[in-house]
């Protein structure tokens, strides 16, 4: 192996690593706020890429009907709660999101002529898929939100399996690859950098900076961090765990779908590709102890580079290398970290 190949592999690794970093950050966030190990994170990536591909073929994606159905189900639950004597406040707003918004979006998709603009397609993909996040929290996690981490994990597994099955139904067994956002090519020395790779790295970096600003500067971001540190304390400030959960799932869905849109032109995505991508994000999140955002992001780059080098040397074993990484990491973490009792 010479330096040029090493550079190309590193460049590849950083591109995929940037996407893993986004997913790892989403996984850490979801776990910190809701204690959910969010296995379906990868499904959002696949759904994002494939919904985008269907929109480009001028079809109405099946995920739209998933949104309508989940919204209707959530509205039904809200209705039952009110009939049993629950508070009526907020019902109108919640019906707006669960019923009116999906139907309006469906009408828009049917009325609108097929568009070639990638920005519009990406916006529509986000508009369809991101609301699935909070709806999923409402339907699947909120009823068991006080359960143990294990119960929440099992719910995650169930959602993952259902989403993969629905993915096969919506998108079929064939994979899709979307056209690149830009055809630009840059060459730096021996390196040829495609415009899409630049898009991925820049968009990931921008999103990470945006998330950092959100958590460090905005009161909503601080409230999410506060919920992760002390749930009861956050409740006493009037920040409800339900709201925190939904907000977290909005962010996680947004990150997942955007990652899918970004990588769709780089690799062929199948209905079940998301799981492996999500798991690699999970390895990175574990490197960060499911707690540290910067370490998780750095770990994601490590995972990306390791993956690209191992696919060069022993491509049949590339997943093995990546997932074996978790063992020394766990040993190192269990040796260095010590359990800290909660104050007082």
């Amino acid at each position: 192996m010479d330096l040029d190949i090493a550079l190309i592999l590193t460049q590849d690794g950083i591109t995929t690593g940037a996407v893993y970093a986004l997913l790892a950050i989403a996984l850490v966030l979801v776990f910190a706020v809701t204690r959910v190990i969010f296995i379906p994170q990868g499904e959002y990536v696949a759904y994002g890429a494939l919904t985008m591909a269907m929109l480009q073929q001028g079809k109405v994606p099946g995920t739209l009907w998933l949104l309508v159905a989940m919204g209707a189900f959530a509205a039904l639950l809200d209705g039952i709660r009110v009939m049993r004597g629950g508070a009526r406040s907020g019902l109108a707003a919640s019906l707006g999101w669960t019923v009116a918004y999906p139907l309006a979006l469906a009408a828009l998709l049917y009325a609108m002529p097929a568009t070639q603009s990638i920005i519009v397609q990406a916006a529509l993909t986000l508009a369809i898929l991101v609301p699935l996040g909070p709806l999923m929290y409402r339907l699947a996690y909120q009823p068991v939100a006080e359960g143990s981490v294990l119960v929440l994990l099992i719910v995650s597994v169930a959602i993952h399996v259902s989403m993969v099955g629905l993915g096969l139904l919506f998108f079929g067994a064939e994979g899709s690859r979307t056209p690149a956002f830009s055809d630009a090519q840059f060459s730096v020395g021996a390196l040829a950098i495609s415009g899409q790779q630049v898009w991925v790295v820049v968009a990931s970096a921008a999103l990470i900076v945006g998330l950092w600003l959100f958590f460090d500067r905005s009161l909503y971001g601080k409230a999410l961090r506060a919920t992760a540190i002390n749930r009861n304390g956050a409740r006493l400030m009037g920040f409800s765990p339900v709201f925190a959960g939904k907000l977290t799932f909005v962010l996680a869905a947004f990150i997942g779908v955007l990652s899918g849109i970004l990588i769709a032109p780089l690799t062929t995505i199948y209905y079940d590709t998301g799981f492996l991508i999500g798991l690699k994000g999970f390895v990175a999140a574990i490197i960060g102890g499911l707690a540290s955002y910067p370490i998780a992001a750095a770990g994601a780059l490590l995972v990306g580079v390791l993956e690209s080098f191992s696919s060069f040397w022993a491509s049949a074993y590339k997943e093995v290398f990546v997932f074996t990484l978790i063992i020394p990491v766990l040993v190192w973490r269990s040796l260095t970290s010590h359990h800290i009792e909660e104050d007082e």
Partner: protein
Amino acid sequence: MQTNTRNVLEVSNLSVAYGKVEALTNASIKVGEGQIVTVIGPNGAGKTTMLSAIIGLLNSKGQVSFDGKLEVVPDVERLVAGGMSLVPEKRELFGEMSVEDNLELGAFHRYRSGDRKYRDTMEEVYDIFPRLRERRVQMAGTLSGGERQMLAVGRALMAKPKLLMLDEPSLGLAPLITREIFRIIAELRRRGVSILLVEQNARAALAVADYAYVLETGSVAMEGPADQLRDDPRVIEAYLGLGGKHQDMLAT
């Protein structure tokens, strides 16, 4: 209690059970506007349980009516938005966030409902607790016990509460700091905040309060204006001690 003041909080027949064990039985208390009302009693009498049930952290039976509105099922978020603040016994600070972030979060629901003037309130809180201003960038988890208590009270004040509920504000604090905290409680009443104070330190609580309840094994055993209870032989016997016997015991 004077009949002409409006009651901020009216609790009647409040009961809480942990499984089959009833921790609070038919407790009824009232807090008038601008008053300090204290609930004293020994360990395990159900004082903390009562506060948790009033604000909706625990399921309960009975009526809680806050600021003239009856709460069928007390709900934390709604009550906090309505102006109730609890400083819990465990403080529940956000340890890995700065003092200033903790204070800001105290104003969260004001911010959410469009009130952007919480910066002014922060200045007021810093005026009451100059110590917090010195430590504004420090992590809350690194503060001393007294500072933590100040931060917990300050954070609750950021919400501009109509009713401030304090659970054992003197717990684990040195006597001088306890005195400081009680001085601040009296100062808060002067600023128009109604206060429900739960304390084991009966002497200090009765000195500052207008009205008092004695809670024993989950029910209200006695009640009356604080200065009357202070002279009641049963209270002196059980909680104040003759000639500061209680204090002497603490010293040995």
